């Protein structure tokens, strides 16, 4: 018998781990901030609540982090969900119209009462989440039961979703004045409230996927659908579940986003967020072909993008030019993930071992 391998903390084990690359990237970005942006790490304490650039990264990244949780599972099954941005808009529209239905009468009316709402808060949130789940169910049905390519199936909702959202709000921007709802995106309990939502969703999802067999089923479906089917996994239901879950996460993200700007704007909420979310998952090391996934790595991926954004703002790069910087980050990630560079890391680790022996 071989002795138990003692490679838990070797160089190779660390570099091969899924979370290594996103964390290194995040650290690199933070190092850059540390060197070039004075006061980036300052955290202010205002009446017990913490403010600062680092907190902003966490807060502004929360919507994409939520999307990334759902998207990770979808991508792990070998699928993709392009409709999350549109689902965010639908959920936000449902929530907005339930709190301020004046748009349905084709008028924008100004509510001075900060406690005015048409429906109670739990109905507002419940209806928005239900809308997200229904959207996810639709995507899941198309992908799992109709066997339509995920990219095409979700493209339908991407195209039609924003139209549906505008149908709900009658094409108007719905202003949300209801204070308790604003808490979701703007509230602060020492740390921003949206951060707690992300952490809660992360813990729940991790428990669901790692303490039950669901996570293994998802990876198995992503690696090989046919063999999963033959080994008795109901692959259709696994796929359905991940799309429903992704819709659910998108609805939460939509609530966070529209509560943050206190406006339910069907045109702009979640615009192009699907791309950010997919990118976060890819930075997190989940292969677009499906297979193994790591939720924490995906969230770190989302934070990397947000940290880049925040530091560029701090330097004073205009908001739109940021996209070029984002592209550069993507290219760096692509290069780091390419076989050549991975091979280099491996050979480097191997050399070290040789030296030791």
């Amino acid at each position, binding site marked *: 018998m071989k002795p138990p391998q003692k490679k838990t903390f070797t160089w190779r084990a660390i570099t091969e781990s899924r979370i290594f690359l996103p964390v290194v990237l995040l650290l690199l970005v933070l190092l850059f901030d540390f060197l070039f942006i004075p006061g980036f790490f300052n955290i202010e304490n205002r009446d017990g609540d913490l403010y600062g650039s680092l907190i902003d990264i966490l807060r502004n990244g929360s919507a994409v982090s939520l999307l990334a949780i759902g998207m990770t599972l979808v991508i792990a099954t070998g699928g993709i969900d392009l409709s999350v941005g549109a689902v965010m808009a639908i959920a936000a529209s449902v929530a907005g119209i339930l709190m301020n239905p004046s748009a349905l009468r084709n008028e924008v009316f100004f509510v001075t009462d900060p406690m005015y709402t048409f429906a109670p808060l739990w109905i507002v949130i419940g209806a928005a989440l239900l809308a997200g789940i229904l959207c996810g169910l639709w995507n899941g049905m198309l992908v799992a039961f109709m066997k339509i390519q995920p990219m095409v199936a979700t493209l339908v909702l991407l195209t039609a979703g924003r139209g549906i959202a505008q149908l709900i709000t009658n094409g108007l921007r719905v202003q949300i004045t209801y204070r308790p709802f604003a808490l979701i995106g703007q509230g602060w309990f020492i740390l921003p409230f949206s951060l707690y939502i992300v952490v809660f969703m992360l813990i729940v999802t991790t428990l669901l996927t790692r303490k039950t067999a669901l996570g293994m089923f998802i990876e198995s479906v992503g690696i090989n659908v046919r063999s999963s089917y033959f080994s008795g996994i109901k692959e259709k239901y696994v796929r359905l579940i991940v799309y429903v879950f992704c819709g659910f996460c998108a609805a939460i993200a939509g609530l966070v986003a529209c509560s943050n700007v206190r*406006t339910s704007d069907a045109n702009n909420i979640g615009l192009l967020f699907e791309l950010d979310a997919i990118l976060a998952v890819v930075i997190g090391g989940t292969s677009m072909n499906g297979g193994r996934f790591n939720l924490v790595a995906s969230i770190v991926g989302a934070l990397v993008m947000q940290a880049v954004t925040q530091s560029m703002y701090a330097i004073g790069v205009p908001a739109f030019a940021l996209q*070029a910087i984002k592209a550069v980050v993507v290219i760096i990630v692509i290069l780091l993930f390419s076989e050549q560079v991975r091979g280099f890391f491996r050979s480097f680790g191997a050399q070290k071992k040789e030296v030791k022996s």
Partner: protein
Amino acid sequence: MMQRLSTFISNNRKIIPMTTTAVLAVAAYLIGMAYFEGLRNPQVFLNVFRNTSYILISAIGMTFVILSKGIDLSVSGVVALTTVVSAALLRDDWNPWAVILLVLLIGMSLGLVMGCFIVYLKVQPFIATLAGMWFARGMCFFISDNAIAIDNSTFKILGQTQLLIPGLKELADKAGTPAPYISIPVVVGFVLLAAAFYMAHYTRFGRNVYAIGGNQQSARLMGLPVNRTLLMVYTFNGFCSAMAGLAFALFVSSGHGLYAPGFEMDVIASVVIGGTLLSGGSGYILGTLFGVMVLGITQVLIQFIGSLSSWWTKIVIGVLMLAFIGVQAVLANRKTGEKALDPQAARLRRQRLAVGLGTAVVLVVLAIIFVPKLSSSSAGNTPEAECVVVPFRKEDAAALIADGAVIAYNRIAGPNCVDEMYAIYPDGRVTGDNAVSQVKKQVTSAEVELLMATISDEYGWYTNEIRDTYHHPCRQCYAHYLIVNRNGQEKGVTAVDGGVNMPPNYGFSLSIIRPLLPVINPAP
């Protein structure tokens, strides 16, 4: 009989999606003609092509990409970059032909670089072209933050030349109506279409693309130049995107980095509706033309119906896409022989057929709901096909502020192409004029005071700042120019509905200002 029908469908299943699209496009237009006088004008039909020329140009390149089992999200970015680069260079008095050549080269090299990433680094096309889109859009803002107008005689000629159609001209002369015409980008689109048709179906390159899309592994094993072909496909698409960007620049005669948001999805949708499978290897260039036509005709119909908002276009396109995916999936699965008897496959086919039929039913229901609306809105209701967006009346606004107004607000464009200027005075006087008629309204000065207090205190929305995020309004959006003046400080904002970079709480401020304004009836 059923047997023969079934065989017929099986034998022709490759061209059925394309034919369906073509039939649908023609049928939709004919039905529209029955309801609306205006659609019988040949110029309106030609406008479908004029308004979608840049989509067609880009969709041709995208068809090749999708045939090779790839996808290109960067087209909208390249379009925006092309408009900005050409506008900026023309502003610096470059030779227009050199500019055109240069932007085409930029587009091709961007395509080539993305192709290299996809081919040699084995990056997913989705990710590589996403990076390309962000890069191109970001570069626009390194060149210019604001929209740059194109004021060049050559570009004007290219954009505004009216090419008369020989046969139709005589007919129009007889009827005494202005002769219908098309624009140069339309001709470019059709020439490109013909070239692409030849390339796809009569050259080695085209066959390679189909083979790679069908199965890249076997294409490689057959000894086809997979890498080179894929590079060519992405380069060609970059060329088409740049060409589409030029057509777009001629269309709006300006350049800005925010142009054409979500354009790539329009393009992909029209390719899919045109019958090309996103799984690659199957589809026709000609189908793309019909896909684009469906898109254009949907827009025109919705414009003519008038009571429907522009977002119905998106919903209709989504439903159409679903229907076509259903039809295609059924047809793609259709095999003669034993395979058809396989119960699993048969069930799948039934399910897909159900989806296809279901969406068809949805369409019919939608039609039934809206046909009464169609007939009720009078046939004479022909919206202006061309709406010239006037510039903001900034001097007038400044004059109003100097006159003592606290808020000056100019709203332009929108579906009816309005040009309204409002002013709110501290004593409660509210005036509005749309360059034709003038209206007045009196509110209490307390209301104005509350309004100003809300804007400044509640929303923190006034500093001595001028903010300009204007870009060309879509055909349904309004463009707003707002100046708020309080305690000697002034804040000006230029923005368009649906712009992505509004200042914080701008929407709130506008929404509480608008109820105070008088209603201006559109000019008779």
